[in-house]
């Protein structure tokens, strides 16, 4: 199964939904993400078989520690794309196109480590008849998309109130089924219309998950929990410490998690 996860790095990640996956029997997942601790946790649990991304970062901590370790021990497969290629792959899937052309990736190692990637020539040739060569980014079709919003209504209209929509709308449109978790479920969205990123035609289910992006940021509701993230990264660097961390925070349900981090 291919799961797309919205947000960016350690920002507005649907962490409550990721924690729900940790408690589930799901495995052999391909995870498409601008990766942060969402990918880290799914790699650590062994549920992510393959990651499709351009980076894995905690932002204030440059490298995602679980992802780093898994790569170095060869326990996770990687489809490494330029960030813009990932965007374009989601846009192609959202538009039901087989691919979209882009310059990013040309000449780089990305084409070497992903031998399935192809280039196309523009049919609109230059005066010498040779059209520009471009990378044909294949549509990144998702089975499921998971995103976290500040506000949603019960029908699936949803709103971000922070500074960046990231690519959450494209994740939803690229997916067969899209699920939104939200800080608050409201009868009616209020505020700037531009902030109402998702409409109910793009969304198949809504979950109320207060503090559900923890420990990633979900401004203006809350910033990243830097102290907790530092604890996460420290624990992730050591197998024994990680076991303790997992037992303390990730062995129960979401309510237990929220209680444990208080």
């Amino acid at each position, binding site marked *: 199964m291919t799961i797309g996860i919205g947000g960016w790095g350690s920002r507005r990640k649907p962490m409550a939904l990721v924690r729900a996956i940790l408690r589930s029997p799901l495995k052999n997942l391909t995870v498409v993400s601008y990766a942060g601790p969402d990918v880290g946790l799914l790699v650590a649990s062994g549920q992510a078989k393959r990651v499709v991304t351009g980076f894995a970062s905690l932002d204030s901590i440059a*490298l995602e520690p679980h992802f780093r370790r898994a790569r170095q021990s060869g326990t996770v497969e990687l489809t490494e794309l330029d960030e813009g290629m990932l965007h374009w792959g989601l846009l192609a899937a959202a538009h039901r196109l087989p691919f979209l052309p882009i310059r990013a990736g040309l000449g780089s190692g990305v084409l070497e480590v992903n031998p399935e990637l192809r280039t196309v020539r523009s049919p609109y040739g230059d005066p010498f008849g040779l059209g520009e060569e471009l990378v044909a980014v294949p549509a990144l079709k998702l089975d499921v998309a998971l995103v976290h919003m500040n506000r949603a209504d019960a029908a699936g209209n949803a709103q971000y109130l922070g500074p960046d929509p990231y690519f959450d709308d494209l994740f939803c449109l690229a997916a067969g089924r899209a699920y939104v978790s939200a800080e608050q479920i409201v009868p009616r969205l209020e505020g700037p219309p531009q902030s109402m990123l998702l409409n109910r035609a793009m969304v198949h289910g809504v979950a109320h998950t207060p503090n559900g992006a923890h420990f990633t940021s979900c401004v203006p509701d809350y910033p990243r929990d830097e102290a907790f993230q530092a604890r996460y990264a420290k624990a992730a660097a050591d197998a024994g410490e990680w076991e303790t961390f997992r037992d303390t925070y990730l062995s129960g349900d979401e309510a237990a998690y929220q209680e444990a981090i208080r």
Partner: protein
Amino acid sequence: MNATRAEVCVVACAEAWRGDGAILASPMGLIPSLGARLARLTFEPDLLLTDGEAYLVDASGEIEGWMPYREVFTMLAAGRRHVMMGGAQIDRHGNQNISAIGDWKRPKAQLLGVRGAPGNTVNHPVSYWIPKHSPRVFTPRVDMVSGVGYDRGARELRVVVTNLAVLDFGGLDFGVLDFGGLDFQGTAERVMRLRSVHPGVEVSEVVAATGFPLVIPDEVPVTRTPTAEELGLIRNRLDPTGARERELG
């Protein structure tokens, strides 16, 4: 006032954006950030800067506009951006690696990932900041080409600023160039050249810290030192705590 090495580097980074006008300046790292803000405060007032999240801000941090990631990607593809990136490895053609060290399939060290480096380098001007100039970084070959060099189709590699020197790609590799086809805008044969050494640095130090042959002009200039106005801005306004001094290798 004598400038420190870090302050010389801030000004050298600022110089990378000279003449760019109203484009998005995207510095990675503290010294490049100070450089971009200094350029905006002095000789390049039209530069666009971000707060690292999604706002366009002036040199004081006041919001002037919106620049979420999707818009960064559009500016990037439009060519209206000049980024200064870091690099774990860089070769004489300007190929850069921020992805992984060793065999990509199972790297000895997983680094950031290619991030936007492939797209940056084929779409708009790119410069590099290397805080510790060493043969480990300046390598004959990079393990995973993230940013592409001139031999792989880079659009424009402006400068490489290090703790020792400023380098550019004004060198030409005559070994593979037929004089009849000599083209200074060509893409395949531009190689790294020593443009200037920072005050107090010998050319031999730079050569020893570089793991491939550099093109070295007969006369190597000295990197310019900050003006009194620039030093005042760096010390009193942009970085009053002196964090810049801790970024050098």
